[in-house]
Structure formats: C-alpha cells, structure tokens
C-alpha cells in the first residue's frame, strides 16, 4: 500500500512537471516573435534565388532581399503592381529599345554593412547569366533566368546607374526583374576567399553553400539562425532603407510543415502563430477557436488548357464556350472548397488593369451551355468524349482530383463525357512542356496545370503566342491565333506603362472571348493566424509584406 502511495505521488509529480513545463509561460522576453508554419517540406533556398516556387520567394526571397523593382503589397483591395525597389526609376532608350537605364537607390547598405551600387547589380546579373563569372551558379539559373527570359546582360554606367540589355524589345522586363534578388557580392567574395575546392568552380559552389548559411541582402529581415530542413530565424533590419517598412516584429521563425493537418494542429496548440494553407475541412474548427483566416484573390488560375491541334474536340468555339458556361463555380467554392477560392472568369478579374472588356461573359448558365452544345451537334444521346490530364496533388493545384470530379459531373449535364488521366504532379508538369502532340499526353485533349498570373509573360504570352508552342514554352495545345500574336507583339513593344497595360487588357479580353481555356478558379492563398497577429494586410498577390505585422502580448 505504501508502495502504491509512493508510486501515485511520483506519477502525480511527473504529470505536474510535464504539464507545468508546457503550461507555465517561460520568463517573459521583450523580444516579439512571429512563428510561421510553411507548406514547404524544407526551408526554401536562402542564397538569394529561392526554390519552391513563389512560396520560396515569399519567405526567403522578399524577406532578406530586394529586387531592382518590387511588388506593392500594401493594399488588400487594389491589384498588386510593380513599384521602385533598389532602382528608383528606369526607362528604355529611345534609340535602342533593347537597352534600359536603371537609376539606383542611394544610401542602401547590405546586411554586412557594404554599400549597394551598380557593381552589385552587374555582379548579381552575372551570377545567373554570365557563365564565365566566378560567381555563376547553375543551380540558381533555372529559377531566375526563366523568369526574366529576355535579359542578356548588365553594364555599369556609374556608381548609381546601370544599363540592362534585353535580347529583343520587351516592355515586361521591369516586371520580370522582381524575380532577381540582389545579394551582397562582398559577403560572397569573403566566403569565396575562405572556400576550399579543387578548382574555381568547386570553390564557388562552396562559397554559395556557405553564403546560404550566412546570407546578406538589403531586405527588411536579416538571417539570424538557420537549421536546414527545420527552421530559419530572421531578425528585423533596423537599418532598412524604407523606414516605413522596418519590421514591427523583432524575430520571425519559419518552420517547414508539409502536412496540412500537422500545420493546423501546430496552430491550434499554440506552437506557431500563423500557418499557410490550412486544410479546407479544418477552417470551421480554426475560426471556432478564435483564430483568423486571411484570404484574398490571388493572381493564380486553375484551368483546363485545351488542345487545338487538328481533330481536337475543343477546336469548336461553341464547345469551349459551353464548357465555360456549364460550371457552377459558386457551388464549387461554397461546397467542396469551403469558400477557399474565387470563381475564375478569365486570367484576370474585373478591377485588374489587364482585365479588358470581353464580350463573352463567363458564368454559370446551363441552358445557354446546352444550347451551344446542341448547335455543335451534341446532346443527351450523343456525348462529346474529352480527356484531361491532371495530378493527384501539386503546388498550386488546390484539390485537383475532387475538383476535376466536380467538373466531370457538371460537364456531363452539357453532354460531355469526361475521362480523367491522373498522373504524378512532377510528371504532369514535365508533360506540360512537351505538349499535346507528345506521347506523354496519353490521348488527352486538355491538361490541368495551374499557373501564376503575376507577370504578363507567364499569365498570357507563353500560352497564347503561337511561337510559344512546345518545345519553346507552355503553349501546350498549340494555340495559333494571329490576333493573339499581334496583341502580344503590341504589348511587348508598348513602353509606356499605360499603353502596355491597355494592350495586355486587349489580349486578355481576346482570350476570354475565344474561351481559350476552361477558366475555373483562382486560389485565395488562405492562411490562418492567431488573434495575437496584428496589422497584417493580405494583398492580391502570392506574396505578403511581413513588415507591418506586430505581435500582441
């Protein structure tokens, strides 16, 4: 009995110790900390050009680094537009439209205290475009050069001026440059001097690996502690050049949490203050416990991209329009996706400078859709067989399988017989580049790969311009429409921003009128956060500004 007593007492003491260690707050610190659970399975690369798509840019790009141009992330209602960053102004040369002059921002210093100047810009362009440069890094080329496809080189004019050269006249270049993050050449050089390796290339790689652990940019956040695959701690940069954007939180801790339920549990148990992409079925539970869900329409499109080669069932515009009118997008939003989407009526929605005035209005209109299909020769006794290639998961794909099954049922009411060809995400992504004529399409006449629509090239040009057909770019279905080609050319060569936007709006409107894609949804970038998180603005962007975020005690 005495043994039992002592056992019980020990058990109670142990239990109290365990509970106490969790429940008792640690000694209060004056430092404010924001802890974020990311969807990534690893910390995106920290060396300046992040991997893992735009989540990488969001967390390890825009935090520690700046570009010559950057996105305005201050408004939740207006479309996010490009504003000056490390460059204060830029213009294309009148005599040669491939040459751009960028005036640089004076008085900016890197986190290591060295000054930002034209040499730094040239050095950073060379890191991804000049194979002869010692700092050239193949691993950074793909995610950078592909996002600024026309940039060729940079040349110093004076300490605060650079000349950038494009391979052809391209008014999109300033927008593309939001993807080039400027790192400290001095910091890298110091690491290169210390690096070991058989040759210059090996030393360069070693220097980049060392730089990734001890990075220096000009951004509002500085690297403080980095444990690969586990956590990245950033601290505020008090000397940031834009005083209005000096972070209001002292420290930000980024934690990879690839599993949605794990992220949700971490938030609900107070282990983190903010999670990206909560599981849709957990939204009610999250809000019921007093946490906030922040979301906004993102420049993201969940489409079906049609085959337009000879014999494709999608070559008939009545069929393409019927499919677009046959989907109850509001039903999809309110049911399957628990409100976490915005119905897509084109690549850009009303209010966006690149929307335009399409005459064809994409909406749910079942009678009109059925009428169009009957006109095209189909009906209840004569279904049109179509096949779409999709994935079971994937970056930006939202809930691809259930969503496609929803479309399958919806389109059946408009006399479509939809077959799904479900493959692994990376394979689908690779096939996207190969196009519908490649055997990898497996007889599909549509593909379901989501895309980011922040930049005109990625939102419109690579899909609609005939010369972008495989293997050049992502015109998977071989769209060949002279009107699109003409409008692309017009947009690319309109160097006045307003003129360029007008041309892009025309192009977008033309693509909607042509029902170029089956436009289904825009993601809303949902994130859930503790009520302690204050001051956050969710812009209409893939990116967010962490600077105004503060933590209530």
């Amino acid at each position: 009995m005495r043994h039992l007593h002592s056992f019980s007492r020990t058990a109670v003491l142990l239990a109290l110790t365990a509970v106490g260690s969790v429940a008792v707050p640690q000694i209060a610190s004056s430092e404010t900390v924001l802890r974020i659970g990311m969807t990534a399975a690893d910390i995106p690369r920290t060396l300046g050009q992040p991997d893992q798509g735009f989540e990488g840019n969001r967390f390890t790009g825009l935090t520690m680094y700046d570009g010559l141009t950057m996105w305005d992330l201050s408004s939740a209602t207006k479309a996010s537009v490009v504003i000056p960053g490390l460059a204060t102004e830029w213009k294309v040369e009148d005599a040669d439209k491939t040459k751009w002059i960028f005036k640089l921002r004076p008085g900016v210093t890197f986190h290591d205290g060295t000054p930002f100047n034209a040499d730094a810009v040239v050095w950073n362009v060379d890191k991804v475009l000049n194979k002869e440069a010692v700092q050239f890094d193949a691993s950074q080329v793909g995610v950078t050069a592909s996002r600024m496809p026309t940039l060729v080189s940079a040349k110093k004019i004076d300490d605060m001026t650079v000349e950038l050269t494009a391979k052809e006249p391209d008014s999109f270049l300033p927008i593309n440059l939001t993807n080039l993050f400027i790192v400290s050449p001095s910091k890298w050089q110091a690491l290169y001097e210390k690096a070991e390796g058989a040759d210059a290339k090996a030393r360069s790689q070693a220097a980049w690996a060392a730089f990734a652990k001890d990075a220096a940019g000009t951004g509002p956040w500085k690297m403080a502690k980095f444990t690969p695959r586990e956590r990245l701690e950033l601290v505020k940069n008090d000397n940031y050049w834009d005083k209005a954007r000096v972070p209001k939180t002292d420290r930000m801790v980024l934690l990879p949490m690839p599993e949605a339920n794990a992220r949700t549990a971490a938030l609900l148990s107070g282990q983190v203050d903010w999670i990206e992409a909560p599981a849709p079925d957990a939204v009610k539970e999250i809000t019921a416990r007093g946490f906030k869900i922040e979301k906004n329409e993102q420049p993201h499109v969940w489409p079906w991209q049609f085959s337009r080669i000879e014999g494709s069932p999608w070559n008939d515009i009545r069929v393409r329009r019927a499919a677009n009118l046959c989907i109850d997008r509001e039903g999809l939003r309110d049911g399957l996706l628990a409100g976490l989407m915005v119905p897509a009526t084109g690549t850009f929605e009303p209010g966006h400078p690149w929307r335009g005035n399409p005459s064809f209005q994409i909406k749910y209109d079942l009678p009109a859709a059925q009428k169009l299909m009957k006109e095209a020769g189909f009906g209840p006794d004569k279904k049109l067989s179509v096949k779409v290639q999709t994935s079971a998961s994937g970056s930006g794909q939202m809930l691809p399988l259930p969503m496609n099954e929803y479309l399958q049922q919806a389109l059946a009411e408009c006399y479509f017989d939809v077959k799904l060809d479900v493959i692994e995400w990376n394979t689908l992504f690779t096939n996207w580049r190969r196009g519908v004529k490649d055997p990898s399409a497996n007889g599909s006449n549509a593909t379901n790969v989501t895309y980011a629509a922040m930049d005109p090239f990625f939102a419109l040009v690579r899909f609609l311009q005939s010369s972008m057909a495989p293997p050049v770019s992502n015109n998977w279905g071989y769209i060949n429409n002279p009107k699109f080609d003409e409008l692309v050319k017009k947009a690319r060569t309109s160097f006045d921003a307003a003129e360029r936007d007008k041309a892009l709006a025309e192009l977008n409107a033309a693509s909607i009128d042509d029902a170029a894609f089956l436009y289904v949804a825009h993601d809303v970038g949902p994130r859930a956060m503790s009520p302690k998180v204050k001051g956050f603005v969710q812009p209409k962007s893939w990116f967010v500004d962490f600077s105004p975020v503060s933590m209530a005690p």
Partner: protein
Amino acid sequence: MLVYIARRIVYVIPIVLSVALVCFLLVHITPGDPLVAVLPADASQELAAQLRAAYGFDRPLPVQFGLWLWKALHGDLGTSIATGRPVLSEVLRAVGNTVTLAIAAAIIGFSLGLMFGLLAGYFRDSWIDKVSTSIAIAGVSVPHYWLGMVLVIIFSVQLNWLPAVGAGPGGSGQWGWDWAHLKYLVLPAITTSVIPMGIVTRTVRALTGDILSQDFVEALRAKGLRETQVFRHVLKNAAPTALAVMGLQLGYMLGGSILIETVFSWPGSGLLLNSAIFQRDLPLLQGTILVLALFFVFLNLVVDIAQAAIDPRIKRA
C-alpha cells in the same frame, strides 16, 4: 565464428552493389524531368540543355551510374539539386534524427511487446492473453499516421501537453536530453512504436507458448527450479527469434517512416525522402535510398552474427 563472419561479410558485397544499381535505375526510370526543382516548365530549351549538361544528365545512363558509384565509394553522394547542399551531410543529419526516433520507439515498442508477449504466452487463453493479443492486433492494424493525428488532437490540441510538430524548441541541431527536448519525441515515438510492439507481442507470445509446451520445461520444473529460473530458460530459448524480429523491426524504423515523420514534421530520413520524391531531387533520392539500404543490410548482418553467437546451431548450418 570468424570464418562465419567473414563469409557473411562477403555475401553483403553483391547485395550492396545490386542495391546501388537498383536504386539508381529506379529513380532514373520514373517519368518526369530530374531538373524540375531548378528548371521551371517555362524555361527555354537552351537553358534546359545548359542545366542538363551542368548536372551531368546529358550523359548516357551507364556513364552516369559509373560516375555516381565511383564517387559514392569515395564517400561523395553528390549535391542536392534542390538545395545545393552535399547529399551525404543531408542524409547523415536526417538519419541521426531518425535514429533518435527509432531508438526511443524501439525502447517503447520492444519493452511493451516483450511484456505483452510473455504475459500472453504464460497465461494462454486467459483474459490477460486476450487483452494482450487485442493490443497487438490493434498495434499492427491501426494506420499509424492516423494514430499520430489522433494523439496530436488529444495531447497537443485539446490538452496542450505536448508539441504537435518539430524536433525540439530550437530544432534538432540543438538537441538535449532534457524534458524541453524529449517532449517533442514522445508522440512520434509512441506512434512509431505501435507496429513493432504488435509484431514483437505476437512473436514472443507464440514462442513462449511453444517453449512452455516442450519437455525440457517440464523437466526443469520437476527438478524443482523456481519459476524465475524456468523463465530465464524460456527467455534464452526465445531470444534468437525474438532478436531477429526486433532487428528487422529496428531496421524498418531506422529507414524512417515517411508518413509519421511528415505528420510530426520530424526532420528524419522519411521526411527527407518525401521531400526528395516531391522535388524529384535525384541525387538526394539516390543517396538517401542507398544509405538506408546499406543501413538495413548491415543491421541484418549484425543480427545474423548476434544470432549465431547466441545459437551455435545457426553457425553450423
């Protein structure tokens, strides 16, 4: 004994080479672009060709395999495409975390498995046997990622006693053997332990029942040995098989569980594999699989040798 050990080591060499070849071929025959992590789908053909050459993917497969194997034999598993970090250091860090988790899970799983197995074996067909067997069946039947989530909901979300995810307050890089760190290990370790616990319970139960029905046990009891002494003999006879089963289970656990490590964001080899698969990071995938396969092969070797040391009949066979 030394001849036996030498023979077993020689047998391992073709197995290791076969494993290397299979893991190389497996990751290369899967569809999709090996550079998907660093080469967006909209990259130009020139850029794609340039990167393929930079990473050596433009060479014939036999050449790629030869180079990879040669470097691997020299301790260089290449560089991760996605992170640019050396694969070996990535794998070793992850394996270290998985070993921590596996050891904790093994202690829990084997202790409980042994206890339940012996109880069930000794008290055949009693309620003790039924309870122990039910626990064992539940252990091997319940999807462990689901159990992990249930444990998280109860102990993290509802009771707020234990962390839901992670490997310590400062990450595994600052691991310490105190409660502040160990509490991160509790839920993933319990979740990982249920399958070995179930398997060990069933194995030990069957062994114990079988040994107890043998004549020598009756003889020992007839000699007047105390039950604790008889128990020691039973344990000694059950040990080789139980050890083999435990070794195999430890091998599985050392391989890391993609599901458990993903559910708990535990930065072990399972989570590393998950990341490598989703990013199609071939060097990382090849390196991780190879290291884990070698682990498994050598663990089997150690178990075989240990078994032979305990039971001389194996050595003679």
